[in-house]
């Protein structure tokens, strides 16, 4: 024991260097570090612990993933992360639900106000004035107006939306701010709600918008000015 300690003291600097220099010092390096905590770099020890944990997870994961290596039809090929199957990678024909049913469920709108549990998609048509074709977006894919804005910007590259303020909503109570918004951007998104009215996007909290939006139309700012007063009226009547 004394020898070991002695040796280690002698090699103190080197050992420390090694430990520090090889964060991937698995297995053997780890053991040495364990037996002489004073000389080991603390970093080395914790890294080893972390690595061991990772290794364990990977080992059990390997069993799980053995079958995945069989060239199952994954498009694209999934990452071999054992802890979770990669999100949104859909294997052909799995789960075994007939495509007729899949299509029907995707296109049916969720019903009722209490649709918190509803996990079917909320597809709405998006048209942009001057664009030759319509697009469809699944509003449930986004969590905020900003995300939607980014997605729409990608789809219709000539289109940019203004900023949505700190709370992510347009401040309708401030008329002059609103007019600035409408005058500054080239295009403004509007939507048709459940009542059939055309509203400016951004006037209600995001989730409420997802639930009530039936279709989107990206229109020129100048045209949208006609909407704003109506939108404001609706807001006022709600308040």
């Amino acid at each position, binding site marked *: 024991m004394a020898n070991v300690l002695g040796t280690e003291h002698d090699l103190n600097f080197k050992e420390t260097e090694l430990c520090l220099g090889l964060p991937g010092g698995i297995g053997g390096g780890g053991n040495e570090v364990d037996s002489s905590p004073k000389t080991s770099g603390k970093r080395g020890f914790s890294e080893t612990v972390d690595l061991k944990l990772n290794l364990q997870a990977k080992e059990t994961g390997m069993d799980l993933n053995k079958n995945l290596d069989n060239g199952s039809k994954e498009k694209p090929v999934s990452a071999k992360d054992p802890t979770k199957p990669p999100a949104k990678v859909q294997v052909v024909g799995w*789960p075994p639900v007939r495509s007729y049913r899949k299509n029907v469920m995707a296109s049916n709108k969720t019903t009722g106000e209490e649709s918190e549990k509803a996990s079917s998609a909320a597809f709405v048509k998006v048209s942009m004035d001057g664009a030759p074709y319509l697009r469809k977006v699944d509003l449930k894919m986004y969590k905020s107006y900003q995300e939607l804005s980014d997605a729409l910007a990608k789809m219709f590259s000539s289109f940019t939306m203004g900023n949505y303020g700190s709370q992510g909503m347009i401040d309708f109570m401030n008329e002059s701010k609103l007019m600035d918004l409408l005058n500054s951007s080239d295009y403004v998104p509007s939507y048709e709600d459940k009542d059939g009215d055309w509203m400016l996007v951004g006037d209600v909290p995001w989730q409420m918008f997802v639930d009530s939006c039936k279709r989107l139309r990206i229109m020129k700012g100048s045209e949208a000015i006609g909407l704003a007063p109506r939108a404001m009226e609706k807001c006022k009547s709600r308040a």
Partner: protein
Amino acid sequence: MSEDDERQQSPPSDLDFVSNKARNCNATGSGSGHPEFQSAYPDQVLENVLENVLHFLTSKRDRNAASLVCKSWYRVEALTRSELFIGNCYAVSPARATARFTRVRALQLKGKPRFADFNLMPPDWGAHFNPWALAMAKAYPWLEKVHLKRMTVTDDDLATLALLLLGFKELVLVCCDGFGTSGLAIFVNECRQLKVLDLIDSEVSDDETDWISCFPEGESHLESLIFDCVECHINFEALERLVANSPSLKKLRLNRYVSIGQLYRLMIRAPQLTHLGTGSFSPSEIAGQGDQEPDYVNAFAACKSLVCLSGFREIIPDYLPAIYPVCANLTSLNFSYANITAEQLKPIISKCHKLQVFWVLDSICDEGLQAVAATCKELRELRVFPVDPREDGDGPVSEVGLQAISEGCRKLQSILYFCQRMTNAAVIAMSKNCPDLVVFRLCIMGRHRADPVTGEPMDDGFGAIVMNCKKLTRLAVSGLLTDKAFDYIGQHGKLVRTLSVAFAGDSDMGLKYVLEGCPQLQKLEIRDSPFGDAALRSGLHHYYNMRFLWMSSCRLTPSGCQEIARAMPRLVVEVIRSADEEEMDDAVEILYMYRSLEGPRTDLPKFVTIL
């Protein structure tokens, strides 16, 4: 609907043929010049008696057995078989079938294997009805019924049936494709004796032909009209006229282009209906505040014979209370397209005391299933489909729902359950609480998912099912499974005829256990599991007893499959590539093999090779 059903038919009404047949029937080898009706030869008499008796034999298994007794029985059985069932359209050719069975009135044919439903089979693989249609038209001009599953039927085939078969009465197409509304138009126009037209889960192309108005004018014999899968607008006025002219109509299943207002108009004309598919179950336009809505409750109340309800394709739940009057009589309820919550389900299901068959979406959650368990004590069949059919979706139903069902519905015989999580404990509980289970299909949507409570594989759960459910004939497994699960199946699943496996097992041993242990195995479909050539070899003793074996994305090689093909000449061994992939020499993507009297088929697409 299960292919394992032994349908009991009423005795055929062609006993008047007997005396003619007896006159034509030769005695066994006695070689007398005139086989007369009152022949004194004892063999002749025996054959007459046999014929009379065999007329009443309806079970196809019994008939197959009878035909093997001796040549005389074989002949007589062939003469008296009026319903011909062919489980694989490539197992026998139309010529051979029509040569042996000369007095067939009803034909049932099945084509593609079930995994084709999930896009695992490239399109245009085969299963064409055309050669059969032509053969039938020549050999059985009196043919009355055709029932097809997973076959490709063209408009011309429909025309053939309608024009060449004079008394044609019944067409049932399940999971078929290849035809459109123009074929339907010709068909309904020409079949003046039509009683049944059932289109179920089939793909019908919209040729923009108004087929409903092609039904002949005047009184119709229609007893059943099912078209809920037809994805095109229909002429409602024509449909209303048709329903009004069909006093025998018992089954009507509408597609989603029929609004609830239109449904009302049909229902009041047909209160005698026993089976109703409601169509969209929503109004065509949002009803204004002042509009008078028809009295839907009354319409349902008038249908005193209604026992089977389905549809609800675009349901507005506010209209659900309309069905209250029929709930107490319902034996079958299909909500599998209705995205409703537990709260919306409860008032309905609490009235459905007689319910035996229930199909539903998992939107009702475990809570909804608990409500089902509380009321539906007569439940025989339950199917729970996912609203969100993705691996990583929300999981509104779980082991909690399964446990509740097992405790409440003790008479359960058949279950199909999609979920995101399941425990061995719940499956074991079901195996003990529901000993009458014949069909157990559990689909844990996440691949390789273990028991979330214990972390164990799902081996013990499925093991308990095969051990405790002594009548089990159909099993579909999922979740994390080792070879042990297959060991259990091989040891205890002695009656299993259909087995579906996906993403399961560790090694060849898994498949070996099953092939060596399950003597009744007929249909085996496997995907993405690590079974290779050695495992395939272990089934050589059994493949002639099976209808088919499907293995995709497993570990088979062409040489392994070639070995099987060489060893078994009556087996057709198809190696199928994805249509867009290059020929791969080292791996077999899809193996589909089946027994056949005909050898390699002649209608092969280029992505299929027969070894």
